[in-house]
């Protein structure tokens, strides 16, 4: 879709302003989530953010950093680790770990440890952006607590580049934990849901609580004593149910999680469907997916951030019509539970058969006005959310 378009790669704010001056624009960081949202109606140029790269300011004593939007998240984490800090998001990074801080923010993507640290929206404390009319503006600031002015950054988070080009972000950092362990408990979805309810009702404070690959993954991070004690308590819960479990730590733990998380992005030939429910909706969501996939004749692999209420299904086998049918059926079930379903990566033909990004009509009128006021000519990825926006 974007292969034949001219690419502008600004390296300064002034160049970024020039790059957005005309045409229908697609903002691209690492290019790992270009297929999220609807396919834009029309595009004239790509604005590549990778030239807006690097740490501009790192106040390690205040645990904040200001970075160019095109900074690869992996590179940032590497630098922050030198001072025992990190930006507490762990989303898929994609091929060659290309995902950028700005891209992760614009897509509103997080990862398993959102359970503990909140979504990326809560970690970005300041923003600089360029609107399509050339306005360069900032919101927020550089301190972790700040309520001066509107929190415009919230609108940009998850806007998929439809409001303007984010050029710089200031983020709150967290200390890297002293210890980390994961208990992987073999459990089918029904058993895992019951086990989750027990952990959820206890005083345990897991940083991640996921169900994937036929098991519940419970991760603890913090001080050695706290991590060990909590792990033991969960192990006892598993033993009571006679469920097998294994402890992961060190590089093996990191690699296991990295593998799980990277798989969330899906493979060519797969359709990736993201559902959300309340935390107690995991069991029903898993069951509804099994039924929807069976009915449509496709295979479905589920990875749930159970404690957050986010469920990623990867569909394979079957044609586009079957993928669309499975997604639509699952959506019906999840909406009945008060949740939502959006479609991310998909095989050709799915988008024609099912709405990939249905926005709640209640808020849509104000959202469209926001779009009209910030991007009056509708030049930023026009059509990604709906007609005209």
């Amino acid at each position: 879709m974007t292969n034949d378009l001219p690419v502008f790669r600004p390296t300064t704010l002034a160049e970024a302003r020039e790059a957005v001056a005309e045409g229908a624009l697609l903002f691209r960081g690492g290019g790992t989530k270009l297929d999220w949202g609807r396919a834009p109606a029309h595009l004239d140029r790509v604005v590549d953010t990778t030239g807006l790269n690097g740490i501009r300011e790192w106040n390690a004593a205040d645990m904040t950093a200001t970075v160019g939007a095109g900074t690869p998240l992996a590179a940032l984490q590497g630098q922050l680790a030198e001072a025992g800090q990190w930006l507490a998001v762990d989303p898929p990074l994609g091929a060659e770990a290309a995902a950028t801080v700005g891209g992760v923010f614009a897509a509103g993507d997080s990862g398993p440890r959102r359970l503990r640290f909140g979504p990326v929206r809560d970690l970005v404390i300041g923003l600089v952006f360029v609107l399509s009319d050339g306005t360069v503006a900032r919101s927020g600031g550089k301190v972790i607590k700040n309520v001066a002015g509107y929190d415009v950054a919230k609108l940009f988070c998850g806007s998929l580049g439809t409001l303007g080009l984010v050029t710089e972000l200031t983020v709150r950092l967290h200390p890297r934990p002293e210890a980390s362990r994961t208990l992987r408990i073999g459990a089918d979805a029904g058993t895992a849901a019951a086990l989750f309810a027990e952990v959820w009702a206890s005083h345990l404070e897991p940083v991640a609580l996921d169900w994937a690959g036929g098991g519940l993954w419970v991760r603890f991070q913090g001080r050695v004593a706290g991590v060990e004690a909590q792990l033991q308590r969960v192990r006892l819960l598993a033993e009571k149910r006679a469920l097998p479990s294994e402890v992961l730590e060190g590089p093996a733990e990191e690699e296991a999680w990295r593998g799980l998380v990277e798989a969330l992005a899906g493979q060519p030939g797969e359709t990736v469907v993201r559902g959300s429910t309340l935390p107690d909706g995991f069991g029903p969501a898993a069951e509804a997916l099994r039924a929807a996939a069976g009915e449509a004749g496709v295979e479905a692999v589920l990875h749930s951030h159970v404690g957050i209420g986010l469920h990623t299904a990867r569909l394979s086998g079957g044609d586009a019509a079957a993928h669309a049918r499975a997604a639509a059926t699952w959506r019906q079930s999840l909406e009945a539970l008060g949740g939502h379903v959006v479609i991310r990566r998909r095989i050709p033909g799915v988008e024609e058969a099912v709405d990939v990004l249905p926005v709640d009509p209640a808020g849509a009128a104000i959202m469209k006005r926001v779009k009209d006021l910030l991007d009056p000519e509708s030049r930023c990825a026009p059509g990604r959310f709906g007609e005209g926006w």
Partner: protein
Amino acid sequence: MTGLRDTLAEILGPEGVFDHPAQRRTYECDGLTAYRVAPSLVALPRTTAEVTRVVQACARAGVPVVPRGAGSGLSAGALPAANGVLIGLARMQRILAVDPANRQMTVQAGVTNNEVNRAAAPHGLYFAPDPSSGVVCTVGGNVAENSGGAHCLKYGFTSHHILALEVVLPDGTVTRLGASAPDPPGYDLRGALVGSEGTTGVVTEVTLRLLRKPEVVRTMVGDFASPSAAGAAVAGLVGAGIVPAAVEMIDNLAIQACEDAVGAGFSRTAGAVLIVELDGVPGDVEAEFEAARRLCIEAGATHLRVAADAAERALIWAGRKAAFAAVGHLSPDYVVQDGVIPRGRLPEVLDRIGRKSREAGMRVANVFHAGDGNLHPLVLYDGAREGEAARALRLSIEIVELCVDYGGSISGEHGIGFEKAGSMPRMFSRDDLDVMQRVRAAFDPAGRCNPGKIFPAPGLCGEGTYRRSPLEEAATVRQP
């Protein structure tokens, strides 16, 4: 206004509308009493339907509306419009749904933080934002100001704990923003509305996120020779990778006031006391509490008192939370300020505040959320003395603008309101403010909802006080 009064009386009943001057005067200010304006009318609805009809009537009449919760705000954010209707939401006190399994609760906007916590407590849950005014302040007010409190260092601000909002827009339409389940598709309007200080609509219902009460809580109070020494201890904690639930500092002047009022046992001779609280699972808390103790001693703590039980902890917090009111023991009047600085700069900024206080010949007490750099200097004055109130307000604004010079913010939790609208250009460029105004227009194109708040009056624009835009800054940096 007589016609509008009659319309509102039809909607709310005669007891739901105030138009007598004495009644209206009750609503002429919020917690920042230095600014007072009596509204034309006061409307006190009980339901969303009533709010809707009131706002519709005001829209038809072309009259501004100002929403108000408990009136405990400290930035004149609920200052009435002289020609407008003040909508008091304190009668909307129903808790609509409690969902302990999903750690959520839906309440009407006039429910207080205390009532939320009372309803959550039987389930072992609580609402994290804890402004000092929690006994009276409303959830709707928390949403408007994006309130914080002592524990947001670890648990975040109101914005992090709001899942969905029901809001009556200035044209009288009702809409629901956000959702109980995470990540509803579309722009995060709920996120934009939280902290918009009543300038985007009237919030009528709130679905909020609750947290599990921590298994253990440990609290200590350290005495230090000076605020700077206590500030060094804070830097030590942050540097050691400890994220306490709360770190609060009270300077000597404020200690006297707290002790007079509550008698929480703070050392009257200390230059400053630091309250450090850790919570979580026992293994983590014990290790970090011990580390925090060591760091306080290394930073020069002359005495450490560890709360023996929940009662002693409650007493310590009662002392801290009474600080603002207690300053009334020291001075007939005072103004509370709210600024933020990077945590590493605490000692320097406290020295600068001390100098400004001496130059102005006015006493300044300091009580603040040291863990996140959120200062609350209290400027003491006597309103009966000619010109002293004006001098106090000026000093207080100077102090908060000083925070901007150190890379900080003019508000950490109290909001901009009417009080600091004129200081916004110190922090934001004309274009920054223009973008915020565009967002506002998406909700309130006519600017009838809480006018005169947050944004500086248009007349200020030409005075050259505006902060340079990011583009201008970048251009300057790049010059050889």
